[in-house]
C-alpha cells in the first residue's frame, strides 16, 4: 500500500460562519502501481481529496499515510520535501511557467533534486522526448498547442521520478482526440513505468483508463 487515508474530513468555514464539509469520514487505500480514478459530481470533494493526498492541503481530521509515514500532521517544509521527492502533478490548466521554454519548465522541477545544469538538461531532454516533444523543447507554452502543453506538464511531473502522479482533470481542456493521447500516455506511465496514478475526472470515458474507481458524492465515498 502506497497511500492510506483513514476517516479523512475537511471542513471550511464560510465568511458567514457556516461550516462546509468538503469531505466527511473518507477512508481509501491506494496500492502501489494502481491507476485510481476519483469521480463524482461537481463539489463532491474530488480535488480536495486529491490535494490532500498530494500534501497540498491539510485535513481537518483523519490520517493520511504515505508508505506508512504520516502526512496529516507534517509541517510545511516536510510537505514541500514530500512533494519534491514523491509526487508529480498534472493539472487541467497545465500550470506551466509562461516565461520558460518547455525544456526549462521541466528543468525547474529537476533542479530541486539535481544541481548540475547539464544533467538537468539531459533529464529534461529525455523526458520531453518520452512524451513526444523532442522538437518543441525551446518553445514557450504560448507557442504550443493545449495537448503539447499538457505533455510538457506530464514531462515535468516525471522530473523527480515520482512514486505517484496526481492528475486533476488532465483532459478537461483538451478535445477528445488529444484527451485520448494524454490518457494513453498516463496509462503507459502506469503500466510500463509502474507509477501509481490518481486521477480526478468528470469524464466516464477517462475513468475507464483506471483500474480502481473512487466515487465521491457530497464529500463521502460512495
Amino acid at each position, binding site marked *: 500500500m502506497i497511500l492510506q487515508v483513514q476517516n479523512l474530513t475537511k471542513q471550511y468555514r464560510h465568511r458567514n460562519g457556516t461550516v462546509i464539509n468538503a469531505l466527511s469520514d473518507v477512508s481509501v487505500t491506494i496500492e502501489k502501481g494502481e491507476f485510481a480514478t476519483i469521480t463524482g459530481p461537481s463539489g463532491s470533494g474530488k*480535488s480536495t481529496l486529491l*490535494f490532500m493526498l498530494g500534501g*497540498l*492541503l491539510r485535513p481537518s481530521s483523519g490520517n493520511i499515510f504515505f508508505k506508512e509515514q504520516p502526512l496529516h500532521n507534517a509541517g*510545511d*517544509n516536510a510537505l*514541500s*520535501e514530500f*512533494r*519534491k*521527492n514523491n*509526487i508529480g*502533478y498534472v*493539472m*487541467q*490548466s497545465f*500550470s*506551466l*511557467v*509562461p*516565461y*520558460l521554454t518547455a525544456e*526549462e519548465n521541466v*528543468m*525547474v*522541477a*529537476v*533542479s*530541486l533534486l539535481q*544541481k548540475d*545544469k547539464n544533467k*538537468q538538461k539531459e533529464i529534461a531532454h529525455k523526458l520531453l522526448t518520452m512524451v513526444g516533444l523532442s522538437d518543441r523543447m525551446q518553445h514557450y507554452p504560448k507557442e504550443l498547442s493545449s495537448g503539447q502543453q499538457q505533455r510538457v506538464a506530464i514531462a*515535468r511531473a516525471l*522530473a*523527480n521520478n515520482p512514486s505517484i502522479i496526481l492528475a*486533476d482533470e488532465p483532459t478537461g481542456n483538451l478535445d477528445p482526440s488529444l484527451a485520448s493521447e494524454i490518457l494513453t500516455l498516463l496509462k503507459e506511465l502506469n503500466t510500463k513505468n509502474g507509477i501509481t496514478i490518481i486521477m480526478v475526472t468528470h469524464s466516464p470515458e477517462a475513468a475507464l483508463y483506471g483500474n480502481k474507481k473512487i466515487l465521491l458524492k457530497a464529500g463521502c465515498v460512495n
Partner: protein
Amino acid sequence: MNLINLVWRELWHRKARLFSGLMAIMLGIAVIVGIRSVTTFSEKAVAIKLDNLGANILVLPQGASTDDYYTADIDAPTFPESYVERIVTSNLSGIDNLSPKLSRRVKIGKDNFVLTGILPANEITAKPLWQTSGLMGAELKASCAPSNSENQPSGLKDERLTRKTIDSLDALDCYVGFMAAKKLSIIEGGKITIENKQFNVVKILPETGTIDDGRIFAHLHTVQKLLGIENQISAIEIMGCCNAISNGLLSKMRNILPDTRITTIGQIVSTQLETNKMMNKISLIFLIIILLVGGISIGNYMAANVNERKKEIGTYRMIGFSRARIYSMLLLKALLLGFFGGIVGYIIGTLAGVILGPQLAGIAVQPILILLPFSVLLAILISVLGSLLPAYLAAKIEPYSIMQEE
C-alpha cells in the same frame, strides 16, 4: 535552472513593469548622487577659497576689541606666547598654521607705524598675498584642503599650493609694508631705525590693500625685547580648515584657551559653510524621502508582481518549492532591482551633476566613484526592505487555493 536564472527570466519577461519598478529607485538614487556630487565639489571650492584667503581664525586677549578682524591685534592687551604651544600640543585637527604676533604703534620720524613681531615661517604661510613677492622657502603641506589632482579638474586654482615659506628672519632684519616704505622713502637693502634700534630692510612687501601695507614686520622675539614685553604676544593668527571650523573648532579652542577671545572671518566662513551645511541637510532630507518613497514604491511594485504571479508561485509550491525558496526568489529579485537601479541611478545622478553643476552652482563637478558602491548598497537596502512584506505574503500563498481558483 537556479534561482538567479528564474528571477532573471521573470524580470526579462515583464520588461515594461521592470522599468517602472526601477524608476523610483533610479530617480531617487540619481537625486541623491546629483546633490551629493555638487555639494562635495562646492565644499572643495569653499575649502580652496578659504585656504587661499590665508589665516581665518584670530586668537586675541580677552579685553581686545574685535570690531575689525584685521586691526584687532594692534595695541591689544597681551597674553603668554606659551599659548601657541598649548594649541600645538592639544592635537586639534584642522589647524594648518599658527602665527603668533605682537603689534604696537611706534613712531618713526613724524609718522606712526605699526610694528609687528612675527615668526617668519609661520607668518608667510598665513599671508598668501605676500607669496608672490619672492619670499621663498619650504613648501607648505596643508592638512585638509583638496589635493592638487583634485583641484585641477575642478577648474579651481589653489594658490596655496604655490606658497612657500621662509625659514628665518634675522634678529635685526625687517619687512616693510608697501605704504610704509613709500612714506619712509626706503628701498630694499636700506636701513630703518625703530625705537633706537637699526633694522635692515630685507624686503618691501607687495601692495595688498590691507592694513599690512602700513606695517613693519620684524622677528617676534626682537620686537618683544624692543618693547619690553618678553614672552608676550597680542594675537595668534591661525589657518583653520573650513570644515573643521564648521565642526566646532572654535569652541574646542575656547576650551583650551578660556581666557582669550577667538574669532573668525565670520561672514565669509559662515555664509559659505552654511550653504554647504544646507546642501548636506537637503541631501539628508532627500535621502529620507527617497528611502520612504522608494521603499513604498518598490513594495507596491512587488505586491502587484506577486499578485500577478500567484498562479506561477502556486505552481512552484506544487512541484516542491519551500516557502523559504519562494521568499528567497523574491528577495533575490529585489536585490537585482536594487543593484541595477543603484548603478543606473548613479550614472544619471553623476551626469546630472556634471552637466548641471557648472550651470546651476558655478562649479565643475567630476564623477565621484565612491558614491557608486554607496548608491548600489542604498538601492539594494531600499529595494529589499520594500519587498520584505510582499515576499513574505508570497511565501504564504497556499498552492491549493490557487489551483482551486482556476
